[in-house]
């Protein structure tokens, strides 16, 4: 019997950490995307959704309790995911001191996603920071008076989103980040099955298909919102 720390000390153990924390984050982004789609049901539905999130887990959890637990778990998952990624990247970088003078990829183009994981992860990290400063705190990307912080039962989330995406530069950055997210999810989800020992020759094709479907649904679901705002399908309430 060996401890979890012994597992973590191996390169595979660090990948297990990435797989498990990645699964948590994947679950979050899917639910987050699905919740965001309420914007198509109109301002009342989205603003109510924002308010009801504070009562998640009622009656076991009080006002904002489960929300804060989720935030702490997500933050912990992000920290562990990035820590393991940095450790593994350093290990890989030191494994070949002298690079080849000719480098040829033998992999087909659809494996492109596997080459975007590291810098794509950095893009996603910067995106998360911007996203929080933007839609959560309203300190970047808005003209004065546009962003309304939730206060005293007033939720103007719908207008916050529309104002936010009316800025085309912000929208383009969001769309680019969602493409990076899609590639990260596609390779990350399949890698998760591989790392946890679930994949084998019989099911790997199915698992790849599942990963691709999940990546497409999440990326396209999110991308549709800034496009809907820019094209005027969704306007201010």
């Amino acid at each position, binding site marked *: *019997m*060996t*401890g*979890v720390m*012994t*597992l973590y*000390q*191996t*390169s*595979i*153990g*660090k*990948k*297990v950490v990435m797989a498990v924390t990645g699964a948590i984050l994947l679950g979050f982004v899917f639910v987050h995307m699905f919740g965001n789609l309420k914007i198509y049901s109109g301002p009342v539905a989205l603003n109510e959704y924002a308010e009801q999130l504070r009562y998640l887990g009622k009656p076991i959890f009080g006002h904002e309790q489960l929300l804060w637990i989720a935030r702490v778990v997500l933050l912990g998952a992000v920290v562990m995911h990035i820590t393991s990624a940095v450790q*593994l990247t350093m*290990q*890989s*970088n*030191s*494994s*070949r*001191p*002298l*690079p*080849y*003078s*000719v*480098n*040829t*990829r*033998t*992999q087909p183009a659809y*494996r492109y996603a*596997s*080459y975007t*994981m590291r810098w794509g992860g950095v893009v996603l990290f910067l995106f998360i920071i911007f996203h929080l400063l933007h839609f959560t705190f309203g300190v970047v990307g808005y003209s004065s008076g546009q962003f309304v912080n939730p206060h005293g039962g007033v939720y103007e989330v719908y207008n916050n989103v529309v104002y936010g995406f009316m800025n085309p530069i912000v929208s383009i950055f969001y769309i680019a980040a969602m493409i990076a997210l899609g590639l990260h999810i596609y*390779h990350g989800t*399949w*890698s998760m*099955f*591989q*790392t*946890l*020992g*679930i*994949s*084998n*020759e019989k099911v*790997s094709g199915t698992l790849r298909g599942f990963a691709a479907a999940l990546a497409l649904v999440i990326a396209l679901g999110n991308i549709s919102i800034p496009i809907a705002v820019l094209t005027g399908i969704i306007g201010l309430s």
Partner: protein
Amino acid sequence: MDLRLRIWRQKNKNTTGKLVTYELPGISPDMSFLEMLDVLNERLIEQGEEPVAFDHDCREGICGMCGLVINGVAHGPEVTTTCQLHMRHFKDGDTITIEPWRAKAFPILKDLVVDRSAFDRIIQAGGYISVSTGGTPDANAILISKESADAAMDAAACIGCGACVAACPNGSAMLFTGAKIAHLSHLPQGQPERYDRVRNMVQAMDAEGFGGCTNYGECAAVCPKEIKLDVIARMNGDLIKSTFLSSGTRKMGPNATRNGK
């Protein structure tokens, strides 16, 4: 065929090497890649120069001794060993860049020859089964399903050439180590030591300075024995089980060990 070769020349372990260009006219497309290098070496010897050192042994694609990175691809443009690659895959006038396997765990000894004893140390850490001496066991006394036998045989096809490490952008030895672990993990004979084996071999692999796996799949794409990425999933799963199964609940005994499921 007239060729221009760019070959990595390095005097020994302690010096730095460089690519040296050689013109090599009059090569037959029917030659193997190593025969082409033999021709080069004969001409170098005639000119009083030091021949290019490269590893080779059986030249039948089964021993795992040869291995060169040819134009950035381990074992070159065909999915086979370097010795079984033929010059008909190249065109007259081609420039061919030939480099050794590059990995911290595979130090270059001379020119294109690398020291792969890191693989031997991984095997020593657990790539075996312990057998009690005694009478010869009856043939077919232990039943193995066709499915398990095939899976074990596919993994056992690994000849330890090191192309997986050479091709991996991370310099990872996961395909090699995974093949050796999956081979025994699929067989009843491998069960008693299954979870100690995976732990010891993975730790030995990491200690050699190989990189981690990020599932690029470059290893499986160049493997001359077409080992699949499945062996890595098998190793990952076994390592996780070795952590979370207490020794009492590990699959032991005849009933649990059939076919290595």
